[in-house]
Structures are given as C-alpha cells and as structure tokens.
C-alpha cells in the first residue's frame, strides 16, 4: 500500500532497533509515555515492544477519547436517546462504552432508542435533512483533531438553516490532561513513577502545532517528541527521546514534520475558537475532574448545544472501586497489576476506561500482547 508500507519497512525498523539498543545506557531505565491511543495501538499491533531493549518501557497514556469519556456522559446520552423525538448519531466505537450499571448505547438501541452509527459529521447533517420532524443530536467526542469537523458541521447546519440539529459536546483537550498527569501526587510528590519523556500526539499536533508542548518541556523538564502513528515514526521518535535523555536535553522535537508545524492549522484553530469555549472543568474517566480540559459551545451557538436545548442534567457515576485505570493512565500501574484485568474486565465486558476501546492500554494489551505475560512467567 503506497504511502503506508514505506513507514512499515522491516529492514529500516531493525536498523532503528539496533541503533536504539546501541545508544541506550543499560544502567538506566527509559520510561516514555505515549499520550495517544493511536500510538498505543501501533505499539501493540506491530509488536514494537519486542524490538525495544528491556530498559525502554512505554507507558500508555490517556489519549483515547472514547476511553476517557466518563460513564455519566454516556448515561446522559442514553437518557437523551430514549426520548421519542430524538435520533442520536454516534461514532461506532461509542456504542459499547459502558455507562452505569452495564448500560450502553448499544443496549439502549436494542430497547428501541433511535441510535444511529455514522462515519462522519456529514452523515448526521444528512439524517437531519431527511428527518425534519425529528430532533437530530450528534454525539461529538474527541481531542483537538475531531473538534474542527464538529465546528464545520455547526457552520453547515447554520448555513442550511437546520432547526432540528444539535450537538452533545464532549470534546477535550490534550495539554491540560498531560499537565494533570505530570502534576499528580504519584508522579510529582511521591515519585513512584518517573516519566522520562513524552511521545507527543500525531493528529492532534497537526491542529494545535508543537508550540503548546514547549511549556511542558520547560516547566517539567521532560523531552517531548511529536511522532506520527506509523510504526517507523514511533521507532524514530523513541530514538530521538533516548538521545535527548542521554544528552540531558528537554526540548520539543518534531519527528512528524511531514504533517506538523510549530503553529498547527490556523484555519482550524480559528473555527474552533469561534464556536467553542473552555469549560471550567471536565471529568475524565480514570483521571477525575481536570480543569479547563473540555470544550462547550459558546452562548451564541446555544441553539446547537444539546445540553442547553434539552435541559440535560450533568450525571456523575463512580467508577468501579477496584478499577486501576487512573493509575494505569498515569503509568503508575500496568494492566496486569489490576485485579479486574482479564477476569471480569475484558473487551467484551469492559469495566474501566482502558478496556473500552482498542486504543486503551488494557484493551491493547489484552488483544495483542497478553501472551508476553505468560512468556515472562515461564521465564521467571
């Protein structure tokens, strides 16, 4: 496949693996957090861990928007979808995300709620045009990458004068979550886990650029390397991080220069800031309340804001107390350290956020990597 195989070349990968091995200092650990679920997925799917030295450990961060969506927001969406006049349009991977007490949009649909899977925001607009007598709500979710399409959709709805269309906004921001992780007591005060550097987001950075990460590199003294989602991108980014650590540098470097600039996509950023504003705080499954980490529609666009339009009440649901997702997302624990992992919590019956989507740390380990646990046990 053109433009994909080039970034999956085995020989180049083996060469990079040799260089990483040669340049790492066996006497010290290298602990890098990849923020994005896309990176987590690539690591697992291509088996990158097998190609890295034992002292290079990848910590899977909270960068999967489906995974970090709190159960309360799912419950809110289910309540909305149960109203007879509403058609709720969602991306497919949201269908199975657990709300409280085992509820999900998939189950709500089976009981008669009109929940429709869409592949793009345009589908939702089309459904609104085809069903003028119904209320169409788009379940908007995602990091900075998916926010501009939602903005475009609202513009389009405005232009088409659609009066039956609104958005249930769950868009979240990357930098506040990274900051939240670095400031958590586990990491900052207790020092239970060290993070030696970050593999920075790929698609998110195409929008926001590399500049927003400069603060982390400076404030927390951690190197950040923006990396593409292809496996060779990741290998190269890891090598760049290793070099920064070895040389005692903590800079923002851009491995993904074929798509990411320092300033990002100005047009997209402008559209987003025209339509959205920051929430004071937003709940992340596994991390709790994170200040200024979520977006909502500005008051001038309230007519497109489903939360206003339908008077939706904020619902809060506690996570299962045995669930270790919070610690796993901060790199303090590994999936296998959780009692629920692989017993009651599997991709078929996810209990916590990390098992929800294939990009979550637990789901990726379960789906692609759990054979290694048995290999390790045999070896020890």
């Amino acid at each position, binding site marked *: *496949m053109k433009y*994909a195989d080039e970034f*999956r070349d*085995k020989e180049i*990968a*083996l060469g990079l*693996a040799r260089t990483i091995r040669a340049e790492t200092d066996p006497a010290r650990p290298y602990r890098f957090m990849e923020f994005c679920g896309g990176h987590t997925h690539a690591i*697992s*799917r*291509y*088996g*990158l*861990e*097998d*190609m890295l030295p034992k002292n290079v450990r990848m910590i899977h961060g909270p960068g999967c928007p489906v995974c970090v969506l709190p159960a309360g927001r799912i419950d809110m969406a289910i309540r909305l979808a149960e109203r007879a006049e509403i058609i709720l349009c969602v991306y497919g991977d949201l*269908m*199975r995300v657990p709300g409280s007490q085992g509820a999900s949009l998939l189950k709500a649909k089976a009981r008669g709620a009109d929940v*429709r*899977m*869409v*592949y793009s925001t345009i*589908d939702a607009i089309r459904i609104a045009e085809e069903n003028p007598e119904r209320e169409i709500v788009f379940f908007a979710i995602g990091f900075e990458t998916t926010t501009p399409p939602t903005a475009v959709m609202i513009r389009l709805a405005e232009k088409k004068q659609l009066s039956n269309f609104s958005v249930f906004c769950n868009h979240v921001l990357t930098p506040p979550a990274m900051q939240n992780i670095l400031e958590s007591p586990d990491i900052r005060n207790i020092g239970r886990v060290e993070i030696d550097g970050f593999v920075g987001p790929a698609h998110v950075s195409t929008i926001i650029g590399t500049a927003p990460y400069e603060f982390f590199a400076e404030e927390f003294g951690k190197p950040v390397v923006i990396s593409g989602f292809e*496996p060779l991108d990741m290998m190269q980014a890891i090598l760049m991080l290793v070099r920064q650590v070895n040389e005692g540098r903590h800079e923002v470097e851009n491995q993904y220069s074929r798509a990411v600039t320092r300033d990002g996509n100005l047009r997209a950023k402008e559209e987003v800031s025209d339509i959205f504003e920051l929430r004071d705080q937003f709940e992340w499954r596994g991390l709790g309340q994170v200040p200024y980490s979520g977006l909502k529609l500005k008051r001038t666009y309230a007519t497109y804001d489903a939360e206003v339009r339908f008077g939706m009440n904020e619902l809060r649901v506690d996570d299962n107390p045995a669930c270790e997702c919070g610690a796993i997302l901060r790199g303090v624990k590994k999936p296998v350290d959780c009692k629920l992992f692989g017993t009651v919590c599997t*991709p*078929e019956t996810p209990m916590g956020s990390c098992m929800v989507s*294939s990009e979550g740390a637990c*789901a990726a380990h*379960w*789906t*692609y*990597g*759990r*054979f290694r646990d*048995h290999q390790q046990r045999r070896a020890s």
Partner: protein
Amino acid sequence: MKAYQRKLDIKNGCVDLSHGSGGRAMAQLISGLFHEAFGNEWLARGNDQSAFDVGAGRMVMTTDGYVVSPLFFPGGNIGSLAVHGTVNDIAMAGARPLYLSASFIIEEGFRFADLKTIAESMGEAARAAGVHIITGDTKVVERGKADGLFISTAAVGVVPDGLDLSAENARVGDRVLISGTLGDHGVAIMSKRQNLAFETEIVSDSAALNGLVAGMVEAGGAGIRLMRDPTRGGLAATLNEIAQQSSLGFHLQEEEIPVKPGVAAACELLGLDPLHVANEGKLVAIVAPEVAGAVLAAMRAHPLGRDAADIGEAVADDHHFVQMATSFGGGRIVDWLSGEQLPRIC
C-alpha cells in the same frame, strides 16, 4: 385450461401479502419464478418435499440463514451468497454437496424483478456448483417486518470414505493453509453501505468451494485434519475457534498472509483488521506437514486457490493463543473480534 389468468408482471409488479397466503397467487409465484430459475426434476413434481436416493457412506447436513444488507453487492447478491455459503459449509467436511433447500421470507412490496434476479443467481450458482435446490418455502410478511428478503437454506452432502474432518483434529506441527486473499467480501459489502459508501474495485469473493476441496482431498486425503471457511469474524475468529477446539495454539507469519492492496487500503481507512473481515469464498485448511506441499499445490492449481498460501503452524500452547510475527518484526496476538465489526454481512 390455463392455471393462472394473468402472467406475473415481472417488470413492474411486486410481492404482496397474497403471495404468501397459500392461494393461487402463491402457486403462481412459486412455479413462475422459483421453479423457472431453479429448474429441476424434483421441483417439477410439485410436492411439499423431495425424495432422493441415499448413496453409500456418511452424510453431512447443514443449515444457514442470510440477511445480508445490501441485497445486491459487487460480486453477487443474497441469492448467490446463500448457495455458496451453504455449499461451503458442506464442502468444509471434505464432502460432496448434493441437495439444497431454500426458504424465502419476503417483505411485501418487494419487486418481482429483484426477486427474479436473485432466484436466477441462485439457480446459476447451484448449477455451477453441481447441486440442486430441491425443496423450498415462501412466506410474505407485512412491510417493515423484514428488510426486503431473508433466505434460509439447508443442504446435505456425502463424505468420501476414510475422511473425518473435525475441529478437534489439529495436531502440533500441522501447517495452516489459506486459499487466497482475505477480507474481499466484507470490504465489498462495506463499500455499498448507505452511510459508508466508498469507491473500490474490490468485489466479493463469494464462490462455491466444493471443486477446490475435491482437488485438495485427492491430494491430501486423511492428512487434511480439518477445513473451515472464515466468514464472519474472519481468519482470526476461525483460528481461535480451532485453537480452542484442538487445545493448541497457532503461530502465523503476517508476511505470508495475502491481502489485496484495495482491501488493505479500505481497512486502513476504516480502522479494521483484514484478519477480522468476512470472506465468502475462502477456506482455511489445517493439514499434516507431510501432505502440506501437495495440498498447497492442488489448491494453487484451482482457479479459486490461485493465491493459496502456507501462513503458519500449529504449536503447543496451554492458553490456545493465535500469535503472529508481524511483517514489521515484532510479535502480537491475533485475537477474536470484540463486539460487532459490521452487522449483517451475510
């Protein structure tokens, strides 16, 4: 005396509730449309069942239901798919499929012209596979109670002497053979879904595999442990099932698994794994290592096995994992698909 006053208006007409009521309209639909398309001596006798001679040896029987959406897709339609899928279930026992039944649940308002096309595809697929559709049933339900047309089938076949293919037969050291490229059917269907339509030249691989199987059985005999057609859930589901049933694991080589570039690209775009995508004209065979070469050669000699490949081996593994060396150089599990990748693919 003519049995029916007016001919069916195939071009403009459609099925209504009277076509399922047991009256003259139903008789006319059955004889005018289905018998015509399936054309054989058993149906011509017009009984509620068909009698046939039972040959020597063991028989196999299977049943299947078809609810695919859309009904027409690149490379086939629900009718050809129903025949191919049913024939393949029989063929996976190494058996020679003989007779099929077909029952139609039709939503009122369904166009005769579409029904005729579908029935003719079934007749054609059956003739090409050397099987006969010898009994059937027609029901009509109100609008909104079925999505156009559902077909359910059954079939019987005979197993050659000395052959006993079964899922628990795989042994450590056996080779894993597949008959060709993966994911064609699933991608062809997806490309036509209303909310997902995209341009691709990929057509469904829907095909009857009994001819291919006959050649394999001749080449490998009892050295063929078992065969499966990797339909819903794809190759991943099929190998995980076999690993469980035979209490072993598999080691695959990603580099050896054939996937068409168009399928790989569509999967890339949609975030799917080709190993989870459905096939309707492919088989997986687990064969003893000593006959693997001969069976693979027999597969490649058949048009439906041109791209056949040896993709890995059965290994001892208490956890029954299907593991794969990735083309990138790492290792990973090939797990079952979680949840539904795409509903109503067949």
